[in-house]
């Protein structure tokens, strides 16, 4: 993902995903193999008719190696569920990777838009555009009362899941996260770690998403999420300023030490790397260190993950080998950018 976008010092990315099913077929979990093949064919046909899909690449899961699938999961372009669907799952991907469409995941279609910074409305517009294009060719499962019908009733209605990846180091350092994240769950938002449901918070990265999909319009869901998040952003920025006023030297030291370790360490776990990238990011956002930028920091966040690391190296690596390869790749990326 490219860097840029509003409030990018706190919001790393905005993601909108919409779930859709074709009326005439059983949902993927119950559909027989031939039906799932027909869904793939139908989607191929539907998107093939549209000029807007010409530039997309098509990736059947069966043609991808475990490592390729793992790296797509790490880049949030496919879900672990689709990665495990080796026969009938497929991905349609726009070259800039901002639009990805999963076929035969939990629902027949999962259309996702991912943009840098706080751009939920734009992400919804983008995903909605491709939804309209497919909808003009395909009869979606839709009920007058319950809206778009999905395999899991938690997605019914709009089928919309909007989420933001937030970097909240100052709120976490100042131990305010419990209070704020607790408040978020009270207003119907789900808070999770880096890799979605059930994952712990590492590297001060937090994912916030809507839970309600029925009874509110897409615009309401997105504007609620945006307005609540703008308050979290404000709080994080205040906490950062406060820290900067009181602990400037310590913060600068932390960021420069992080850079030093990222440049010169020889063995590094992904957990340590994510924490160091977070420290460096905070230093950059506070203007204490200028030798990096968001594009590089985002790139680092992806390349340190096991799948991407092994894909870059071109072979499978065990944990020890990855811990050696990781700092080498980080060093290369840092040197290349300077």
């Amino acid at each position, binding site marked *: 993902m490219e860097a840029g976008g509003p409030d990018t010092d706190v919001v790393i990315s905005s993601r909108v995903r919409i779930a859709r099913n074709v009326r005439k077929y059983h949902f993927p979990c*119950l559909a027989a193999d031939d039906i799932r093949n027909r869904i793939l064919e139908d989607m191929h046909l539907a998107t093939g008719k549209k000029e807007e899909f010409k530039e997309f690449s098509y990736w059947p899961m069966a043609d991808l190696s475990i490592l390729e699938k793992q790296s797509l999961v790490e880049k949030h372009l496919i879900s672990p569920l689709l990665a495990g669907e080796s026969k009938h799952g497929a991905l349609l991907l726009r070259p800039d990777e901002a639009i990805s469409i999963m076929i035969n995941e939990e629902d027949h279609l999962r259309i996702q838009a991912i943009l840098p910074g706080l751009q939920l409305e734009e992400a919804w517009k983008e995903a909605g555009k491709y939804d309209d294009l497919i*909808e003009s060719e395909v009869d979606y499962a839709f009920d007058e009362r*319950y809206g*778009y019908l999905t*395999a*899991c009733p938690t997605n*019914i209605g709009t089928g919309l899941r909007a989420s933001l990846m937030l970097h909240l180091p100052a709120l976490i350092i100042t131990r305010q996260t419990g209070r704020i994240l607790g408040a978020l769950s009270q207003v119907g938002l789900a808070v999770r770690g880096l890799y979605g449901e059930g994952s712990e918070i590492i590297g001060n990265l937090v994912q916030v998403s809507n839970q*309600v999909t029925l009874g509110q319009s897409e615009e*309401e869901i997105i504007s609620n999420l945006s307005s609540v998040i703008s308050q979290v952003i404000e709080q994080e920025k205040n906490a950062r300023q406060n820290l900067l006023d009181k602990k400037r030297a310590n913060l600068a030291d932390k960021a420069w030490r992080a850079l030093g370790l990222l440049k010169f360490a020889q063995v590094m776990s992904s957990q340590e790397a994510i924490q160091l990238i977070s420290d460096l990011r905070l230093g950059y956002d506070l203007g204490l260190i200028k030798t990096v930028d968001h594009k590089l920091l985002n790139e680092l966040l992806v390349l340190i993950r*096991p799948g991407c690391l092994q894909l870059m190296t071109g072979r499978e690596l065990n944990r020890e080998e990855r811990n050696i390869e990781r700092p080498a790749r980080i060093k290369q990326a840092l040197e290349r950018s300077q």
Partner: protein
Amino acid sequence: MLCQECRKNEATIHIIKSSDGKQTELFLCEHCAHDRDELDFSYEPKFSLHQLFAGLLNQNLFNNREASSFPGLQCPSCGLTFAQFSQVGRLGCSECFTAFEEQLKPLLRKIHAGCSHRGKIPFRIRTKVLYLREIDELKEDMQQKVLNEKFEEAAVLRDRIRQLEAQIIDTGTVKGENQ
């Protein structure tokens, strides 16, 4: 120690599984662990929304003894039984919503902001859905007028309802609307 699966490579992964109070141990090499999906490379959640939903369902059934079993309740289209659904939390097809509607409604109310869709409507049935929504509202209004003995006003609403109903044809579209 050698891998228990292939008995060739050195076992580097030790897995302890605990279920129903019983513990089982496995010593595998990385390859076999991968093949058996024992290595969770995917960050797949241990606790998913489906499980949460299935839990809510079971809780609801448990709390309501009369409804605690729905023998024979099954989706006529895909064959999914309600018992199966309450285990996995996932529906089999679009008809399941009708088949299990009564059971689903209280749960939808619990997890969502109500039970009626207010968002996007597919273009090809947009007019029909908007007409149906208007008909629902008019019917409520009409009943209110009848209760208040405002029969002339109720008759105007009735005519409007009939007019809208006549516009809707079974194919999911509205007369005069282009497919």
